[in-house]
């Protein structure tokens, strides 16, 4: 009979055991009778010889090996009965813990989705290789084509090295209207390294990726379905990519949109001008798969060696340029934010657990009598402790199950809240095995925590003194009160830290929001535009196109003004090092960094901001010898706090710039209001310069008249295709979209932090309320005595409020120190807000104190309203 069956048929076994031993005694007795004994004597003799039947039975039961399981089952049944009896207590405890575990599950799912990388096997073996300058300031610089070829030839620690670059393009063919598409040039081995194969046709081959190879293209599954009706005959047909014919050779699976949200892929060799690119045109992303048994550190040292060799061989372009091997793709959200959020949910769970632990602790004191009785009847200390641990575990399991359900809801709500944000294709808000493990671990930890504290307390006291103490409830352990106070202090401190973090993020969000009000975004639309290289290879060709297009667009009725910029406001963009004429660069300090935007046309008018000082650009600006720039107010505040900026000269050097002749000085001709360029960081200084040659494509920004009926976008689209049918505008979006999207980090992460903080606050308040209410009940008699002796209601209330003062002040003290740490963690994301902002801290301390006072005064007032006679008789 195996263990399980023994466990299941315990009753049968018990019956058989009894029958077997009885049979033995009978037989022995029969033998003695046969030897001539009397019936009674024979039985007595047999029994005496056998020894204690019950002891033998006990040892036989132990031999089954199911003893502990049966005991635990008994404990579980007992605990379940107890929890069912205290239905409201159980419900409150389970809900509190479920909220805690649920938030942890939700947050972990989100963090896990953002950090787990590509949805392929061995995702953790994929690394990116980026360039960085000697000072190590800049990562993610990308690689140049020539460097890539050298790394590809030299790296032995990776089993393959691929490169890609993203762009926008226009999809065209004879049967459909042209359509914009996100496109990616990939080296031929890219799909193979990722382990992805086309669902139709073939993948890229090495011979496709050579100069002069025929133009081919692989399409994404969604385009194939939507545009080509899932037509398998598409393979082999010729379509136009940016006006250039290319043969469709394959279709990738639906949902595969490497590297971010691309739908069209071509071999890297087809990228125009790639072959003639200089070593310092670092526009490629390079990634590889670590070879077997090679670590990232080994790859790093090898890549560093190659970078050193290249900087010796090509000092003009590669001096001081190193290599960084990092996980690919990097985490989607900044690490400190994710850490702050994980800490936040951890705190909430701690506050919830601490509450439940103090409730169980209070109840364990009330059960001292029960424990003492059990101990007196022979229960070991371990058995009693185990009973309490089982109770905690049971609560945690119930909370874990509901917590998992909460997390599902939480993840669903989160995915709804971030619906408009373009996450890379590999970020899917799904739970995987890791999430389940995490939730299970959270349950286990919670169960131990909430069960262990009362258990330790009982183990400490139950066995030796409560038989005497048990009868009266008035004097229950000092120990217990010390524990409760310690838990309360921890709860209050953690709540303060959370509230402070939330406060800082919310203030930042408001600061961004206020700052963005300068832009009149209501009627402004952004339309990305990529000029196909063959037809627009020279700067003069491109400039001519832009000038014509600007004229045509501004002639459209309803359009108030049009402009071009290399990047839309609020959407990031390139950065440059800033130098100011007449100011020495301080050695050792990081060189100041500014955002760098090239504009064309009436940019500031179109955004509705105008200029504060000086003038806007005129056509003469930007021609060699007359370099002019407009800077934003933020730059003036940071770098010209005391001097007039107009007329000053500045110089912008590329972040990865090769040493050599520095670029020309540029004169500041105007100051514009601060329009953010970067997102999820403090307001950035921006330098605007007139566009001279456009290398990376421009975005057309159009302001329409408030009175114009309907959208002007179709008319603009028409104007573009009228000029050149092979050019189409990318996704047209209102400027407001960029504005709100750029705030999503603060909105979502700050919002989450605020939700967590308020849940912690509510839990802490409920905990304090319960502790006070409990001590009111415990001290009812004492209150009766005091009132009989003439104590006023105020004095009775003060009795309880006073006892909260100490934990509150200690909790606030510790909390403030912790909040400084939280501020440090969030420092990089605070906007116009100091990490140690005293106003936020003070406001939050006052809020916390007020909530605590309320949570404490309410039950205490109940005590003051007691009838002294009843209170005296209370038992």
């Amino acid at each position, binding site marked *: *009979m195996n263990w399980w069956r*023994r466990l299941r048929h315990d009753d049968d076994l018990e019956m*058989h*055991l009894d*029958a*077997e*031993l009885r*049979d*033995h005694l*009978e*037989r*022995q007795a*029969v033998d003695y009778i046969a030897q001539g004994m009397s019936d009674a004597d024979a039985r007595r003799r047999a029994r005496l*010889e*056998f*020894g*204690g039947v019950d*002891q*033998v039975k006990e*040892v*036989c039961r*132990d*031999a*089954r*090996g199911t003893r502990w399981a049966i005991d635990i089952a008994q404990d579980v049944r007992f605990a379940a009965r107890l929890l069912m009896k205290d239905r409201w207590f159980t419900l409150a405890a389970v809900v509190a813990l479920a909220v805690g575990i649920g938030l942890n599950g939700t947050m972990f799912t989100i963090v896990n989705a953002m950090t787990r990388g590509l949805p392929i096997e061995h995702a953790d073996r994929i690394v990116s290789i980026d360039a960085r300058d000697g000072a190590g300031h800049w990562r993610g610089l990308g690689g140049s084509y020539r460097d890539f070829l050298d790394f590809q030839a030299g790296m032995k620690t990776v089993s393959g090295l691929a490169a890609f670059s993203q762009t926008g393009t226009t999809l065209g063919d004879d049967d459909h209207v042209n359509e914009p598409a996100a496109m990616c040039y990939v080296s031929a081995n890219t799909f193979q390294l990722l382990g992805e194969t086309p669902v139709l046709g073939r993948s890229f081959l090495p011979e496709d990726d050579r100069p002069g190879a025929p133009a081919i293209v692989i399409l994404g599954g969604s385009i194939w379905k939507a545009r080509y009706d899932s037509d398998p005959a598409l393979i082999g047909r010729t379509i136009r990519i940016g006006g250039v014919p290319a043969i469709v050779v394959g279709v990738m699976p639906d949902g595969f949109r490497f590297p971010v949200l691309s739908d069209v892929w071509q071999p890297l060799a087809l990228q125009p001008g790639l072959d003639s690119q200089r070593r310092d045109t670092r526009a490629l992303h390079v990634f590889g798969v670590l070879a077997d048994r090679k670590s990232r550190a080994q790859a790093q040292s090898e890549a560093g060696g190659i970078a050193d060799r290249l900087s010796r061989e090509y000092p003009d372009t590669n001096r001081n340029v190193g290599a960084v091997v990092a996980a690919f793709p990097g985490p989607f959200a900044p690490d400190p934010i994710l850490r702050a959020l994980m800490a936040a949910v951890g705190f909430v769970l701690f506050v919830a657990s601490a509450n439940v632990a103090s409730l169980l602790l209070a109840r364990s004191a009330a059960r001292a009598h029960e424990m003492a009785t059990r101990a007196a009847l022979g229960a070991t200390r371990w058995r009693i402790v185990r009973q309490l641990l089982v109770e905690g575990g049971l609560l945690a399991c119930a909370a874990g199950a509901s917590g998992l359900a909460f997390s599902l809801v939480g993840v669903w709500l989160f995915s709804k809240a971030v619906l408009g944000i373009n996450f890379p294709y590999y970020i899917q808000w799904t739970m995987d095995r890791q999430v389940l493990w995490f939730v299970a671990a959270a349950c286990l930890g919670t169960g131990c925590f909430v069960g262990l504290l009362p258990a330790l307390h009982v183990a400490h006291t139950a066995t030796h003194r409560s038989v005497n103490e048990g009868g009266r409830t008035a004097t229950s352990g000092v120990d217990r009160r010390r524990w409760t106070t310690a838990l309360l202090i921890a709860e209050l401190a953690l709540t303060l830290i959370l509230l402070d973090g939330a406060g800082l993020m919310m203030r930042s969000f408001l600061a961004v929001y206020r700052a963005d009000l300068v832009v009149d975004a209501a009627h402004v639309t952004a339309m990305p535009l990529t000029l196909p290289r063959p037809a627009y290879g020279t700067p003069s060709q491109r400039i001519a196109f832009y000038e014509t297009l600007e004229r045509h667009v501004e002639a459209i009725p309803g359009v108030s003004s049009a402009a071009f910029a290399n990047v839309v406001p609020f959407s990031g963009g390139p950065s440059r090092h800033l130098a100011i004429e007449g100011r020495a660069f301080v050695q050792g300090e990081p060189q100041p960094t500014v955002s760098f935007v090239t504009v064309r046309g009436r940019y500031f008018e179109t955004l509705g901001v105008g200029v504060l000082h000086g003038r806007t650009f005129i056509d003469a600006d930007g021609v060699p010898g007359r370099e002019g720039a407009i800077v934003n107010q933020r730059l003036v505040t940071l770098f010209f706090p005391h001097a007039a900026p107009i007329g000053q000269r500045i110089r912008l050097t590329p972040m990865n710039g090769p040493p050599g002749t520095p670029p020309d000085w540029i004169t500041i001709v105007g100051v514009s209001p601060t329009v953010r360029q970067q997102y999820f960081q403090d307001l950035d200084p921006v330098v605007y310069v007139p566009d001279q040659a456009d290398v990376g494509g421009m975005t057309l920004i159009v302001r329409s008249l408030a009175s114009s009926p309907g959208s002007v976008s179709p008319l603009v689209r028409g104007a573009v295709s009228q000029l050149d049918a092979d050019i189409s505008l990318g996704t047209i979006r209102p400027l407001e979209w960029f504005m709100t999207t750029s705030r999503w980090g603060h909105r979502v992460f700050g919002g989450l932090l605020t939700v967590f903080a308020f849940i912690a606050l509510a839990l802490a308040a409920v905990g304090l309320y319960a502790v006070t209410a409990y001590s009111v009940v415990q001290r009812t008699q004492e209150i009766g005595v005091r009132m009989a002796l003439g104590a006023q209601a105020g004095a009775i209330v003060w009795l309880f409020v006073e006892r909260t003062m100490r934990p509150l002040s200690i909790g606030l003290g510790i909390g403030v120190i912790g909040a400084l740490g939280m501020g440090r963690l969030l420092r990089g994301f605070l906007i116009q807000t100091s990490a140690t902002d005293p106003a936020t801290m003070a406001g939050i301390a006052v809020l916390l104190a007020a909530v605590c006072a309320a949570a404490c005064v309410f039950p205490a007032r109940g005590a003051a309203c007691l009838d002294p006679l009843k209170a005296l008789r209370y038992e």
Partner: protein
Amino acid sequence: MATPNADLPQGTLDMLILQVVARGPIHGYAIAQRVQQISRDVLQVRQGSLYPALHRMENRGLLAATWKATDTGRDAKFYRLTPAGRAHLKEETANWARLSDAIRLILRTASEGGA
């Protein structure tokens, strides 16, 4: 010199029981009697330790048990050896023989050396 009612060395009770059961299905009381009989009353098996040992070996799969009617008309639990039990017995017996040989050898050489 063995004294009457000597305690059994650790682990030998199991072996003795297996040895007795090896001769055919038998119930607990009879095992106790038989062990006493064959060891000529030198070894007294306390019934208190007989049954736990039987149950332990049953749970380990060395013994199997069935309830059967006996000649007296009462049902009794009969134990018999499983193949695993037979193998175990063989192994234990061999071990025991080796051990007692070794001890005998040591005692003999020790007493010769002392003489």
